[in-house]
């Protein structure tokens, strides 16, 4: 009995903790139109292969599926396949989970469906999360990698796009907790660029949007085809239903 109460209390406490963490910084809106833009997707694929696909795998995704975003087998072979894989191969990496655990403290998750898994009903889509995450890395000397992240505190991954974004510092201020005047809370006030990157802030946002567009597309390569088809299916069903409705009326007019 006591165990039940204790576990219930723990559950309640845990849930309020979970809710508190979901109060964290709001996610920025990912510019959705990039997912239907082939140039953006191709740029995203390039960024993905160059920066992500060294530690992270996308083990359910085949290189040659990139043909769906307008690349040819030859282009894929020339530009995106490095380690002698075939274009029909899956996007695996040779980093062993054991090494990864030792180096980063965690095994880098597979990225094939990462955009689908990170959605949160109350905060936004998985793409929104990733778009925010990739833009909110900041320097933090207290972390072993020297990097921290606003939406993923104590993140294991260092900032892989730092050359593009440069380095930024997070400014925090201690403020009185509005719920409890005796406490102070650590409030995020904004970023301060400490070292410029090779891209301007606006260009970096576009690059991240392209990368996230690619991740979003890779999560479900059929998604654009799905929506296009859906329009025709619903048009057909609308006509079908109208005919069925009139047919029904024709039969039922005899029923008195």
């Amino acid at each position, binding site marked *: *009995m006591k165990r*039940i*109460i204790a576990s*219930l209390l723990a*559950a*309640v406490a*845990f*849930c309020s903790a*979970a*809710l508190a963490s979901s109060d964290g910084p709001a996610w920025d809106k990912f510019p959705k139109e990039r997912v239907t833009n082939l140039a953006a997707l191709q740029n995203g694929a390039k960024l993905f292969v160059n920066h992500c696909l060294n530690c992270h795998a996308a*083990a*359910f*995704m*085949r290189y040659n*599926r990139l043909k769906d975003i307008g690349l040819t087998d030859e282009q894929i072979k020339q530009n995106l396949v490095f380690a002698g894989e075939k274009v029909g191969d899956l996007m695996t990496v040779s980093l062993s989970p054991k090494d990864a655990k030792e180096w980063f403290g965690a095994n880098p*998750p*597979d990225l*094939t*469906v*990462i955009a*689908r*898994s*990170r*959605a*949160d*009903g109350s905060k936004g889509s*998985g793409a929104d999360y990733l778009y925010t995450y990739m833009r909110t890395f900041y320097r933090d000397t207290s972390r072993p990698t020297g990097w921290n992240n606003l939406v993923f505190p104590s993140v294991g991954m260092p900032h892989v796009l730092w050359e593009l974004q440069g380095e930024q510092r997070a400014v925090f201020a201690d403020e009185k907790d509005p719920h409890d005047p005796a406490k102070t809370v650590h409030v995020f006030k904004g970023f301060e660029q400490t070292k410029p990157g090779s891209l301007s802030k606006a260009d970096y946002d576009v690059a991240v949007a392209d990368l996230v567009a690619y991740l979003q597309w890779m*999560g*479900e*390569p*059929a998604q654009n085809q*799905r*929506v296009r*088809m*859906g*329009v025709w*299916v*619903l048009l057909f*069903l*609308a006509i*079908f*239903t109208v005919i*069925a*409705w009139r*047919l*029904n*009326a024709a*039969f*039922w*007019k005899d*029923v*008195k």
Partner: protein
Amino acid sequence: MATFKELPADAPAVAKVTNWFENRFPTAFDAYKVHMSEYYAPKNFNAWYFFGSLALLVLVIQIVTGIFLVMHYKPDANTAFASVEYIMRDVPWGWLIRYMHSTGASAFFVVVYLHMWRGMMYGSYRKPRELVWIFGCAIFLALMAEAFMGYLLPWGQMSYWGAQVIVNLFAAVPFIGPDLALLIRGDYVVGDATLNRFFSFHVIAVPLVLLGLVVAHLLALHDVGSNNPDGVEIKGPKAPKDAKGKPLDGIPFHPYYTVHDIFGVGMFLMVFCAIIFFGPELGGYFLEYNNFIPADPLKTPAHIAPVWYFTPYYSMLRATTDVMVNVLCGVIAIAAVVSLLGVKGRAKVAIAIGALIGIALLKTFDAKFWGVVVMGGAVVILFFLPWLDNAPAKSIRYRPGWHKVLYGIFVVFFVVLGYLGIQPPSDAGTIVSQVGTLFYFGFFLLMPWWSTIGTFKPVPDRVVFAAH
């Protein structure tokens, strides 16, 4: 054997072929008449009556898409997640088949809940349709088992931890619980053995039971005839009939209701396909976001919620805390005192002893166990509905206005319980779900008493029907 019919030599070819088959397989021709062309259904069905045929449609969708999924799915803890993504990417149209199946699972519960609600509103479970209702409840139970075991197969985090939570519920059964849970899992944790047996149950064992029950449900229905929104018997001895003895208020199922149901199918498919093509995850309700993370036995998700169709019952489980058990003891005590006032002699002793045993049992076992009992009881109680309802009128149309209010509150509580089951637990949520649970059981257990009270409207002799 039926008489062997000979057609004249100059009969049309189609008639000859038909006759050839009818002579050799008369059962099929009789069945067509009994269940389709000469099955008389009341002519006053409203839109609520679409959901029976829609449930059949979804069953077919699930079986057909399931067959194709099994061709590519691998029931192996190491490859299951990858094989689902393989279906989504490399199998031609695999994504469509998979979305049809995942959306179909939720659609099944939508139509079945609405179908059951229709039965409750119009008293379709009342004599002589008790068995139709009981077969239906058994279908609902089988469907829950089917959905639960199917949900493990994608082997994502929610699959894994949802199964872990539900199987652990069985462990709460006194004495045999832990062994029972072990028997279900086939291992000490949910693992490859669990996945394999759930796969087996999901693709063959439960579907066979389900199909058998659906056949029984339909055969029993066609034996006693369909009820209707007025709750008036169209085939009874007093019902008006034409010269051939056909009910005047009935019409042949085929073509009138087949063509009617096709219209319903069109409307249903528009919603169904809109979800498949434009939002197969349906905001995380049909496909939970966490389930796109492969199952990880070492990483418990912060919040484990069953899929939406289980959440009303899951809420009742969570509502059963120690406080709730004390409340239940109080309810038993009050019920005993009230019934003691009404009876005399030996029955008094029996009631008192029964109540004491009930309270002693409630206090002996864990609240967790009683939560499981409450959750199971909430489904099992549906089986007894035909004998709980004593109202003089079958249909809600002729019952007192406050009965309608009570039915309305019932639905509201059911939906609220479902909503709370999705949310992480909270103090306010727990209290609301406790009230909801008490209402749910009160609604059914007190029905023999309240269903007779109030002013009933006169039930007409014939169904109310306005020609279209």
